[in-house]
């Protein structure tokens, strides 16, 4: 019974993580794109006329708008598949997360909690299966919409998926050969070791070429620029979700970002050590929890003070420019940052974090590892956005050329070299 509760708690945590990152991703996409193109980007929506949070309110407003819009079902659609497709995309994206570990084993008394929703013994293969399932939603949506553009988009999605799935599979296979396991938990554990005494044995260090092939194939799998041919605006209007409106469109829109987050989490787990903090193993984290916690809280105090000063400077500098309540926002933010700094300082003075108990040290280690995992995921999610606003879209024949004539031979080469090295080392 207790274990079931813990599984539910872990599922809830994962869902909250993805659904919490979704609006952040949409915000980062819009604001990041704007700043890269020397624009200001979204900043109009506000809460109570005061809080604009640099555009972070916009995703909420967007989703609210989409939910309350009319749900149009065009004539001639295949109703069942038309309704199923957006949910399929979303559900597949969310369920891929089940096998991704986000922390080391946590011991509560005699209860060992594996911080992973499902520790499948075919972990990596499950991920490959689920990511290739995600194209089914796109294909069904394009086909069921009874629209030639979305149909073309789904054809493109299929062929793109087939071409790049092979490369992705070969890259992951090389990694499996190198680490000797397909369980996600064991893979992350083996990445906590050090190579030559100083280099973390991350997948990217063991398999640099494999990583490049994997990340390129991943971009193609989640349909992101430069491989977002299934939604090429210039020639396919908007690709497979032309005929969708309201909540169903919102689902497709959010599923794209959910897929990005999942892809980022997979990359972080397979190639960048998952929840491992480089050079700090779980034991090191637990035994040095006191000084580490004190140091991080002290850094937190300094950062909060810095943010407060920056917000206050912004308030002083731009006072009187807008002439309404929006001007108060940086001042209120400065006060909040100051309060947070004061709270952290109070915790430092009264909580005496350097005298941490052993049980609390274990929790501290787990929280640090979850933080490391989220940070790595965020970085790769940002990479998707960064690349999208840097590169133009591939032409279709270029896509096929890159997939079959460049990446496939490279992936095969990488696979055979890895196999040969593993054979030599093991014999």
């Amino acid at each position, binding site marked *: 019974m207790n274990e079931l509760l813990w599984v539910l708690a872990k599922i809830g945590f994962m869902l909250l993580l993805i659904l919490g990152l979704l609006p952040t991703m949409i915000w980062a996409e819009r604001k990041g794109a704007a*700043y890269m193109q*020397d624009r200001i980007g979204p*900043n109009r929506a506000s809460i109570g006329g005061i809080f604009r949070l640099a555009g972070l309110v916009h995703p909420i407003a967007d989703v609210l708008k989409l939910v309350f819009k009319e749900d149009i079902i065009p004539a001639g659609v295949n109703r069942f598949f038309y309704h199923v497709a957006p949910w399929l995309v979303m559900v597949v994206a969310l369920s891929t997360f089940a096998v991704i570990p986000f922390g080391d084993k946590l011991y509560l008394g005699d209860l060992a909690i594996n911080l992973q929703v499902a520790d499948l013994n075919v972990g990596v293969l499950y991920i490959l299966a689920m990511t290739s399932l995600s194209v089914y939603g796109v294909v069904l949506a394009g086909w069921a919409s009874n629209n030639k553009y979305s149909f073309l988009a789904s054809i493109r999605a299929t062929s793109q998926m087939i071409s790049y799935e092979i490369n992705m599979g070969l890259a992951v296979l090389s990694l499996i050969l190198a680490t000797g396991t397909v369980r996600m938990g064991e893979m992350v554990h083996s990445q906590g070791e050090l190579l030559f005494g100083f280099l973390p044995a991350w997948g990217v260090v063991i398999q640099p070429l494999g990583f490049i092939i994997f990340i390129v194939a991943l971009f193609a799998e989640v349909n992101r620029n430069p491989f977002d041919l299934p939604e090429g605006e210039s020639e396919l209007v908007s690709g497979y979700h032309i005929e969708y409106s309201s909540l169903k469109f919102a689902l497709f829109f959010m599923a794209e970002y959910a897929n990005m987050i999942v892809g980022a989490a997979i990359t972080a787990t397979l190639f960048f050590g998952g929840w491992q903090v480089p050079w700090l193993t779980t034991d090191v984290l637990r035994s040095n929890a006191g000084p580490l916690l004190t140091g991080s809280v002290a850094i937190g105090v300094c950062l909060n003070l810095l943010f407060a000063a920056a917000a206050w400077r912004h308030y002083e500098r731009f006072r009187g*420019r807008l002439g309404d309540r929006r001007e108060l926002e940086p001042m209120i933010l400065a006060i909040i940052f100051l309060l947070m700094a004061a709270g952290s300082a109070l915790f430092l003075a009264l909580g005496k974090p350097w005298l941490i108990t052993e049980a609390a040290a274990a929790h501290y280690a787990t929280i640090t590892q979850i933080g490391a995992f989220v940070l790595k995921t965020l970085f790769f999610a940002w990479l998707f956005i*960064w690349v999208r*606003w840097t590169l133009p879209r591939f032409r279709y024949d270029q896509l096929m050329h890159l997939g079959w004539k*460049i990446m496939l031979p490279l992936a095969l080469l990488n696979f055979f070299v890895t196999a040969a090295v593993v054979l030599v080392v093991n014999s």
Partner: protein
Amino acid sequence: MRGGEAFYLVEILKGMAITMRHLLSNMFDPQRMPTLEYPDQKPEYGPWLRGRHRLMKREDGSPRCVACQMCSTICPADCISIVSGEDDRADVEKAPESFDINLLRCVYCGFCVEACPCDAIRMDTGIFELAADNREAFKVDIDFLLNNTTDGVRR
């Protein structure tokens, strides 16, 4: 295609460096961006801007217009309609009884200003924000036009 360019990686990294440079410099100095935050900041136009029309007054406050119909004749959009009437004053023969401009029809070409023989109509108010939520608001009459002022505020 050379081998290095075929795999694109170096070129991609160069491009990413450019976008990141733009992002960071815009983040730390938002004033760099050329965007004008329109409803909060207004653009500054020169005095040659053809904004909303106004009718000039004589020293006694009556309109300068002598209802000669030249502006409504030259108007390519046919948006000015004047009803002329007699005036009792010794030095004035005619004066407009009504002077209506349909701003929805107006193309802001300024021909009426050029045509006017006594400098009675001008487009120098500097008002360029012409928006309303009903059509009637765009049909402006003589009282409105006489009280349109150059500082952009209707008194």
